[in-house]
């Protein structure tokens, strides 16, 4: 089983500090929610884990290795980084073919993941004709292609309808129950409150909270939506002020 380790991770873009001295361990078999307002540094952190952004300080390791050192990255980590990484003129199936061919994954896997994300019927259409939710699911299909032990998803609920969100919640739960490591970001507490085993709140690039839902809610208990919301706002808005 593969865990994600952030060790003093930091990133500056010019004068702006996007992420500062972030240290965390994200364990297999549970869903870790990465929460924070827009611009908190969630995306930058995830992209550093995935080797897309070069850290200014510290390091991010997956099973003890940097992403670029993974011998079979697609079979180790699956990543969903938003609904935008597609050529509009390419079919969904061809998008997946590009990945399987490069990663050496048998092409039979394409039909399996299409089935899993319920895109089989749309696979022959150009992505330009897809809805936002369909593009999210195609991204998820790409992430699952190599049957990875780690799933990293940046705001995967964006653009999904209520049915899609419920499906995603069940999917993330089942993925973690399989013993996989699941890291999912959101700027909406309510979206992940019912799925996450562990909540990590960051704001202004710094760690503000790390614990489970009942700790976040305090004495009111995790059933109190208002108490949760207030706690979250205190951590994020209060920190920014």
């Amino acid at each position: 089983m593969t865990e994600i380790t952030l060790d003093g991770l930091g990133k500056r873009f010019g004068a702006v500090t996007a992420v500062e001295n972030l240290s965390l361990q994200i364990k297999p078999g549970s869903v870790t929610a990465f929460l924070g307002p827009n611009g908190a540094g969630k995306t930058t952190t995830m992209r550093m884990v995935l080797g897309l952004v070069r850290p200014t300080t510290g390091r991010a390791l997956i099973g003890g290795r940097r992403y670029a050192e993974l011998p079979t990255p697609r079979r180790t980590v699956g990543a969903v980084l938003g609904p935008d990484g597609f050529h509009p003129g390419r079919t969904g199936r061809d998008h997946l073919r590009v990945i399987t061919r490069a990663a050496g994954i048998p092409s039979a896997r394409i039909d399996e993941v299409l089935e899993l994300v319920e895109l089989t019927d749309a696979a022959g259409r150009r992505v330009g004709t897809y809805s936002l939710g369909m593009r999210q699911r195609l991204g998820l299909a790409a992430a699952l292609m190599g049957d990875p032990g780690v799933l990293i998803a940046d705001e995967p609920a964006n653009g999904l309808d209520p049915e899609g969100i419920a499906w995603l919640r069940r999917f993330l739960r089942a993925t973690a129950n399989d013993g996989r490591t699941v890291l999912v970001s959101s700027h909406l507490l309510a979206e992940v409150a019912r799925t996450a085993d562990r909540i990590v709140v960051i704001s202004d690039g710094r760690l503000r909270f790390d614990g489970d839902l009942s700790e976040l809610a305090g004495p009111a208990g995790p059933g109190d939506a208002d108490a949760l919301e207030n706690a979250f706002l205190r951590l994020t808005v209060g920190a920014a002020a």
Partner: protein
Amino acid sequence: MTTLKRSLVASELIKLTSTRAARWILIAAAGLSALAISGAVFSGGVSLTELSTDAGLRTVLEHGGMASIMPLILGILISAGEYRHGTVVDTFLTEPRRARVVATKLLTGALVGVVAGLVCAIVTATTASAWYAAKDVPLDLGSTPVLRSLVGIVLWQALYTVIGVAVGSLIRGQAVAIVSVVVWMFVAETAVSELLVSLGRWLPATAARTLGNAPDAGLLPQVGAGAVLLGWAALAAVGAVVATARRDVA
């Protein structure tokens, strides 16, 4: 390592064949070759008496290589196109060793550039034959100057595609990259070359035309011009590898 490279090249070829752009670019290149040759003959740029001379023949055939903007654009699409559509993220997630990604793209550029070159060479040979027949001037397609021109045109298009891949890696904005090469190849360099032929012959677009067996005086020999263009391609390729290795994909 070798099998991995092959699978990456195959993946790049799927990218090119699964959208329409590459096909249209090849068709446009074929059309431009035919148009440029027809223009040279029809407009009298090469007069009837010149057609049978070595210089006239080489000038006509060299026009067939002037479709080279299309291979440049094709190369830019291979690299900058991925940044434009954001598919570069999936590419780097599959192969995080970026030097390998860039090397694969350069190699893919060389392969499809040869295809583009063959298309241009075939169109060049057939269009020139048709015009020579129409003007009642004999043309031997198997003669040395013709073969040198056609081989030169193929290598010209192939190296231009590689340069396009490199430029599109250095300048990620697809439109900016295309405008930049157009301005350099067709405006800035022409101006420099006309001012200083001795300097101009070392520049890429002039070397490319010489590789295409253009007969103008003061230019390098064809093989030397090929080496110069290869040098430019190599330089751009190194720049592409270095720039891509350090870049944040945010």
